[in-house]
């Protein structure tokens, strides 16, 4: 593509997005804006996870821990600084997240697959426990910490409309950056890691460095999203964080297509919308329907059932296919179809071992 055509494409995208945001801003009620914002906040974590799982091939269950770290950063920032709390908190979260991610990356050098997933689970438990101890020994044990001072200098980000603009801008930056990275050397190196680590190593890719970078970068994004979430909600408390969030994220990235950045964003917003609306749908079910009473009361369980069916269904459906479930998200990669063949036996053999050569 010539430079001018690429430039034109960019301008069109930006204009298009501004239009979308503007339309949302003007036409949606506060309730819907809140829903969309929640979805956008989820999108950051979803992008991180879909890149990690879909492009680099590493499983992680550490999202909860990272979000908690982000939340803690928000609380700390709000307590220390008032007028620049938002960016300050984000900075702390980014640093903490990067460090945590780098450590996780180091662990990923020695462990593979489920061992890595279990370690990330261990991290989550430890972080949440520490958080709980700190919170319950403080004066905030019941109400949680306050993070309402969401200011960027003189601008106060209050109200859903302001959040929409902020999140949209940040998200666009993240998406653009991510896609650039994925198209570049790092992205291709990661794909090498995912498919055949031995071959990648032979090709001169510094496996260790790439793994650490992958973890550090994605962890930073998740942590920052945790900070933003905290400011958006206004309070931070350890009981906001639960292991089921991890499964939510996995459901989202499966829906959007493993490895698809745009798909992750779309799926996040969809997920948020469905979650919001499901309650209404269930309560307005005709009472003649069986289980209608139970369904309306147990919204959370219905979501669980749907999520579970979704994950399994999409995996079964997209087996061997290289398109994502969200058709307009251009996924060229599906983890199932591009995994090179290993014999049935060798799969068990290699994976059982921990530690790379």
């Amino acid at each position, binding site marked *: 593509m010539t430079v001018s055509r690429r430039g034109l494409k960019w301008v069109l995208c930006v204009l298009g997005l501004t239009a979308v945001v503007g339309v949302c801003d003007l036409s949606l009620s506060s309730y819907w804006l809140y829903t969309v914002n929640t979805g956008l906040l989820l999108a950051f974590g979803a992008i991180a996870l879909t890149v990690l799982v879909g492009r680099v091939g590493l499983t992680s269950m550490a999202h909860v821990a990272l979000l908690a770290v982000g939340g803690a950063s928000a609380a700390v920032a709000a307590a220390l600084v008032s007028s620049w709390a938002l960016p300050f908190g984000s900075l702390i979260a980014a640093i903490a997240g990067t460090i945590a991610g780098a450590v996780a990356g180091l662990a990923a050098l020695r462990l593979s697959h489920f061992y890595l997933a279990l370690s990330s689970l261990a991290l989550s438990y430890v972080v949440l426990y520490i958080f709980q101890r700190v919170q319950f020994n403080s004066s905030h044990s019941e109400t949680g910490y306050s993070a309402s001072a969401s200011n960027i200098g003189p601008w106060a980000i209050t109200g859903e409309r302001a959040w929409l603009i902020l999140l949209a801008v940040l998200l666009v930056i993240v998406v653009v950056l991510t896609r650039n990275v994925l198209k570049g050397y790092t992205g291709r190196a990661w794909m090498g890691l995912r498919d055949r680590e031995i071959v990648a190593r032979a090709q001169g890719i510094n496996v260790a460095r790439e793994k650490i970078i992958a973890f550090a970068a994605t962890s930073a994004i998740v942590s920052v999203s945790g900070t933003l979430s905290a400011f958006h909600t206004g309070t931070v408390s350890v009981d906001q964080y639960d292991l089921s969030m991890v499964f939510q994220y996995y459901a989202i990235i499966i829906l959007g297509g493993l490895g698809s950045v745009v798909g992750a964003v779309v799926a996040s917003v969809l997920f948020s919308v469905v979650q919001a609306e499901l309650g209404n749908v269930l309560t307005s079910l005709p009472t003649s329907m069986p289980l209608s009473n139970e369904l309306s009361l147990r919204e959370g369980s219905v979501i669980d059932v749907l999520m579970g069916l979704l994950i399994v269904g999409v995996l079964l459906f997209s087996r061997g296919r290289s398109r994502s479930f969200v058709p307009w998200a251009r996924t060229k990669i599906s983890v199932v179809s591009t995994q090179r*063949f290993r*014999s*049935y*036996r060798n799969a068990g053999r290699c994976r059982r071992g921990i530690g790379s050569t």
Partner: protein
Amino acid sequence: MTGRTRGRVVVRVEDLHVSYGGADAVAGLTVEVSAGEVVTIVGINGAGKTSALRGIVGFARGEPGRVTRGVVSVSGRRIPPNSPQASVRAGIRMVPERDKVFSSLTVEENFLASSPKREGRGFISRGLELFPELGRRRRAKAGLLSGGEKQMLAVAIALAADPDLLLVDELSLGLAPAIVTRLMKDLRDRCLELNLALLLVEQNAVAAAAISDRMLAMQQGSIIAEEQLGPTKAAGPALHRLLSQLGGGVQDGAQLPSN
């Protein structure tokens, strides 16, 4: 012995196509093997020989290959493709190229696990009869056996099941020439004794020629030449003709050149 008639066709493979994710490894294999006959397919690495054998047995769900076309019949009856279970039930047994025994099980347990329903002791003793040296190692873990012993075990297990057709993939791989010769001879003797059809795949064409009745040359998924061998003096020239089809002059006793 068994009710098999010598010379009667045991297995007929027609137009077999095997593909791995879209790429054809075997493109139209047609071959017949009769009871008491030893047929060997030779070719270089990657010619599709192993895929051909696996294709005759069939691929289970989750294995990467697939039989996309072709018919395999044993004793006149068609076997459903891609069903190892049906093939085994129809009387086909295969000794694969790699991982031919269960390393974490003992020799005895290897026999026991592979024995048909309600047979246990009988199966083990039948198998140990075939290769008495295994008897000495019956309580050893199969993973600790030498290459030759593992091969013996694998062949013994397959033979003890009294199959109609035995497929052996690369019997000679990794074994010393003396053991190869001995194993091949043993195999041929059993084959004649039990009137079973034997289909071998080999890179060591010369060693296989010593025991084969017929030899097929395979290249890039298709059979390109076929020669009758047999224990006559004509075996030498026939073998040369066959091997020259595969390209390159081959010395007596040498392996086929790999690509």
